[in-house]
C-alpha cells in the first residue's frame, strides 16, 4: 500500500522481487546497493541462513529525494524463493505496490519459473488481490548461461498479458536498473493517477460568500445532523446497545414446588434420602 504522509510530505512505495529459488533476486538488490550513491540509499538488510540463502527477506530503502514537493522513497524487498518458505514469502508480499518477477532463463528451470508465478497468483489471492491488476515487470535473468531459453519461449510461458520484460545478467548489473526503473515508473504513475482522480477523493469544501448567499432564493432548512455514531462508525452508540436476551427461561413454579417437597422430605428424614 502506497503510504502518503502530508506532515513529512513523503511518499513511500513497496516493491517486491519475487521468483524461484536462486533466480537472482538478492543479487539484484546487492547490485543496486553497490551502485546507488550512499545519500540515495540505506543499508541492505538480509535476513538469511548461514549459507546466505534468504530466510525471510532482504530489504533496501531508496530515497529519490524531493519530487514535486514530496520526498519519494522506495522500499525494495526480496522473498525467499525456496518452495517450503511459502508462509514467509506470503508475509513479505503484504502491501506490495509493485512486483518484479525474476525468472531464471535456464531451460532446466522453466518448471520452477511457472510454479513460482502460479504461487505468486495464489499468494496475492490470499490477500484478495489479482495478479492481473498489480504493477508487474518480468526480468529474464542469467542470460549469459549457455542453456538459456529464448526470450520468445520465456514470453510464451510467463508473459501472459504483454508485461514489460527485461533481459538481465544481475551479477554483472546488466538489466538491473532498467527493471527497477520500469517498475518504479509504473508504481508512481498508478499512485499519481489514483491520487489526482477527482472521483477517488472527497469533494473540496468551498464556503460560499455571504453576499451571494443573501441574493439566492430562501434555502431549505439544513438537514439534521446525523448522530455521532455515523461520524465514528467504529464506535458503538450507547443508544444502539441492547442487552442480550436471557439464555435460560425461568423455571416453572410446579418444578420449584416439586424440588421444595423433596428437600423438605430429606430434611424430615435427617438428611437421608
Amino acid at each position, binding site marked *: 500500500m502506497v503510504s502518503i504522509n502530508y*506532515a513529512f510530505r513523503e511518499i513511500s512505495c513497496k516493491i517486491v522481487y519475487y521468483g524461484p529459488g536462486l533466480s537472482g533476486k538478492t543479487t539484484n538488490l546487492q547490485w543496486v546497493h553497490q551502485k546507488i550513491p550512499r545519500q540515495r540509499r540505506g543499508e541492505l*538488510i538480509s535476513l538469511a541462513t548461514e549459507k546466505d540463502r534468504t530466510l*525471510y527477506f532482504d530489504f533496501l530503502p531508496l530515497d529519490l529525494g524531493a519530487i*514535486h514537493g514530496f520526498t*519519494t522513497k522506495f*522500499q525494495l524487498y526480496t522473498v525467499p524463493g525456496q518452495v517450503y518458505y511459502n508462509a514467509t514469502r506470503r508475509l513479505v508480499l503484504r502491501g506490495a505496490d509493485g512486483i518484479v518477477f525474476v525468472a531464471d532463463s535456464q531451460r532446466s528451470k522453466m518448471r520452477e519459473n511457472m510454479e513460482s508465478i502460479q504461487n505468486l497468483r495464489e499468494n496475492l489471492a490470499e490477500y484478495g488481490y489479482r495478479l492481473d491488476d498489480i504493477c508487474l515487470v518480468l526480468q529474464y535473468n542469467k542470460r549469459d548461461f549457455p542453456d538459456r531459453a529464448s526470450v520468445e519461449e520465456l514470453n510464451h510461458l510467463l508473459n501472459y498479458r504483454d508485461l514489460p520484460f527485461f533481459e538481465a545478467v544481475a551479477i554483472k548489473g546488466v538489466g538491473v*536498473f532498467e527493471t527497477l*526503473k520500469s517498475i518504479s515508473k509504473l508504481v508512481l504513475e498508478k499512485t499519481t493517477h489514483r491520487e489526482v482522480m477527482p472521483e477517488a*477523493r472527497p469533494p473540496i469544501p468551498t464556503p460560499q460568500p455571504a453576499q451571494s448567499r443573501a441574493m439566492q432564493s430562501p434555502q431549505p432548512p439544513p438537514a439534521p445532523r446525523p448522530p455521532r455514531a455515523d461520524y465514528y462508525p467504529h464506535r458503538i452508540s450507547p443508544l444502539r446497545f441492547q442487552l442480550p436476551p436471557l439464555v435460560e427461561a425461568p423455571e416453572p413454579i410446579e418444578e420449584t414446588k416439586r424440588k421444595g417437597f423433596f428437600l423438605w422430605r430429606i430434611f424430615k428424614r435427617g438428611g437421608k434420602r
Partner: protein
Amino acid sequence: MSEEISIIYKGQFERIDGVLKKLLRDSEAKCSLLVDKDGHLIAKQGFTHSLDTTSLAALLAGSFASTKEIAKILGEPEFSVLFHEGRRDNIHVSLVGKRSILGVVFDDRTTIGMVRLYVREAEGELKEILEDHSEWEEGIGRGFADQAKERLDQIFGD
C-alpha cells in the same frame, strides 16, 4: 497491490506526535515509533537520531507479521504484544487498531510494567486518531508523475 492508499494528514500527524510525546514523558522510555503493517514509518519521537528508523520500521513489521503466523499455528487470532529484552535496551511492540504497530524502546530507567501501562493508554488514543478520516488536503498534483520520471532517469540512468 492494494487499491487503497494509506494517508496521514498534517493534523492527524500532530495529534499522533502529541500522544507519542506524552507516552515518552509518562513512561520515561527512550523513543517510540508508529509503523504501519506494511513496514512504512508513520511517526517517531524521542532519541531516534542514532537509529536507522526506516529499517527498524520494516523489521518491526516483519517481526509482527511472523508472530501473527505463529499465533495462527497455536490457534490464537493474533499476539497483541511482543517484547524483546536486551542487555541495555528493550523494545515493547504492540498492535494499534488493525493496521498499525507501536514500538517503544526503553532502558533500565523505567520498567516493562510502566511502559505497558502507558502504552495501553496511548493505543486507544492512537487508534481513534488513525481512524478519523475527517481531514482533507490537496492531492499530490498532476506534475508529480512527469517529475518522477525525470528523477528516475537521472538516478537509474537513461
